[in-house]
């Protein structure tokens, strides 16, 4: 890096200054924005523009057929009085709060188990990763439903070990565990990221700790966790945001209803129902913005708190 900078600088000063350099700057700027054009169009046309539009719509009553009508904060007021909305927030909140940590703990545990030089590691890693590719698909949702229905496979396994579960799909108290199992089944993607992080922890640290007589528990808390904290941060952030967006599995397993008793009425499912089945686009936009604010606050919280628990090596403490 340092080398290239020097080269550029000497090259620059060899040519008569300012004018040539300014021309080169302008050429760089032009090239930069030319290469970035598709992304810029996408950013303004498909992200920033629609975001502003939905912010506007959130304050209107709009059904796609009559022009939008400004209603102030009515949508937001209605949201917090709408039992279905509150239910969907509760369902999604529970799913994110329980599913994400369980999934990440499983991912870290298996990554640590695999992080040695025994044979077959690559194979296990690939096999464990596979569910992450298909877990959110309609196909797996169909299979999950077939496995968790009354007198289904999971019920039979329960009976085999002396527990009478009954059907999970039709029991409002058991649908959440079923969805959490589905997300934990996809622990492979964060596991692969953890494994890559573990490989970067210098073995000398563990050797030094062993010399000092540290046991495995101390090594885990004093070396592994701090050294891995940037990766934990990354996984926690992405998996949390990802969890908010579950849709296909909930749609398929509940037949698009969010039932039984609203127990699978995930936020995105309710947003879809309001926006695209009832065509209450203003209301759905308000929902979307509540989600953005919640996710934004969570992200901010993660970044703010990271100062206290994320360690970047080579950084002064």
């Amino acid at each position, binding site marked *: 890096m340092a080398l290239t900078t020097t080269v550029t600088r000497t090259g620059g000063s060899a040519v008569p200054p300012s004018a040539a350099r300014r021309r080169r700057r302008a050429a760089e700027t032009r090239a*930069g924005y030319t290469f970035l054009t598709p992304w810029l169009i996408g950013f303004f046309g498909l992200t920033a523009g629609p975001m502003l539009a939905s912010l506007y719509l959130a304050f209107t009553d709009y059904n796609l057929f009559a022009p939008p009508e400004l209603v102030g904060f009515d949508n937001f007021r209605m949201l917090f009085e709408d039992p279905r909305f509150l239910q969907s927030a509760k369902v999604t909140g529970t799913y994110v709060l329980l599913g994400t940590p369980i999934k990440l703990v499983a991912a870290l545990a298996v990554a640590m188990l695999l992080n040695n030089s025994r044979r077959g590691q690559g194979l296990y890693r690939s096999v464990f990763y596979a569910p992450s590719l298909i877990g959110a*698909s309609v196909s797996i949702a169909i299979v999950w439903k*077939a496995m968790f229905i009354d007198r289904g496979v999971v019920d039979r396994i329960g009976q085999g070990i002396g527990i009478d579960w009954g059907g999970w799909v039709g029991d409002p108290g058991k649908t959440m565990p079923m969805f959490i199992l589905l997300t934990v089944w996809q622990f492979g993607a964060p596991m692969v990221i953890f494994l890559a992080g573990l490989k970067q922890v210098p073995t000398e640290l563990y*050797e030094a700790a062993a010399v000092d007589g540290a046991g495995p528990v101390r090594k885990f808390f004093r070396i592994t966790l701090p050294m891995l904290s940037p990766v934990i941060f990354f996984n926690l952030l992405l998996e949390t945001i990802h969890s908010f967006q579950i849709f296909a599995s909930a749609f398929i397993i509940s037949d698009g209803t969010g039932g039984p008793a609203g127990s699978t009425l995930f936020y995105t499912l309710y*947003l879809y129902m309001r*926006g695209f089945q009832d065509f209450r686009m203003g209301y759905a936009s308000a929902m979307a913005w509540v989600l953005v604010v919640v996710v934004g606050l969570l992200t901010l919280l993660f970044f703010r708190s990271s100062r206290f628990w994320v360690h970047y090596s080579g950084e002064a403490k």
Partner: protein
Amino acid sequence: MSIDHAVVGTAGGLQAEPGPGLPSHEQSRALRRRTRTRSRAGSVLFHTFVLAVTAVILYPALWMLMSAFKPTSEIVGNVSLWPESPSFANFATALDGIGGVSFWTFVWNSTLLAAGSVIGIVLSASVSAYAFARIDFPGRKVWFALMIATLLLPFHVVIIPQYIVFNSLGLVNTYVPLLLGKFLAAEAFFVFLMVQFMRNLPRELDEAARIDGAGHLRIFTAIMLPLMKPAIVTSSIFAFIWSWNDFFGPLLYLKSPDLYPLPIALRIFVDQTSTSDYGAQIAMAVLALVPVLLFFLVFQRYLVAGVATQGLKG
């Protein structure tokens, strides 16, 4: 490897102590034997445990695959994987199609959408990534930060206005709303993946080409693109699989059955067949996953490597 480290560690510890000299020949041989036995026991324990995890992970997938060959009466509540009288009847039902539209139409639609996604994403993401990683221009840092921010943005906040606009342009019930974003690098994941990859390519290459008088277009097409092959392969596979599995987009935008991709067809199929016909449903679910599994088997190393590089330097 870990055993070596352990031995080195202990040896270092021993030497640090004053007094006792090097262990005798006998002692070191005994030590070596002990470590070997311990490592073998550890190995057995390791594989037993990992195989148990593997069994749990694979069971739903295998149960799905094998159930496709069982009659429906044998599927529900049948823990055993082996079909007692294997048959292809379920597949025949699944291949019959839905409401006069052939199963292969859905496969073709899914393929079209996936191919379009791959082309769009590879083109747009690589070009944008080059700007972010290799061109120094005012405002780059701001745009990059915004790009990362869209990575974290719940997409729900943009779908309603997007739908309204596509609807007023008469583009609902076409593939345009599903593909346009791919050609405009709207999925930041891919841009980010390629930027990360490009940053690891030696800068000296560009500088040399620069001195030889090559412009950015030349450097991008002649130097970067060929070197980017691994990142392009990884992106293509993810783009393909995600498009193949996508349910929300098609559910929103496609109304006529002859345009449906497989996930929507599957949902309609589940709706139409009597709820008890799990055999045909599962057979169709299996067929829908075949390309994903093939891609996974062929390219799993690229996929795993692509995911692994994500988390580092994030």
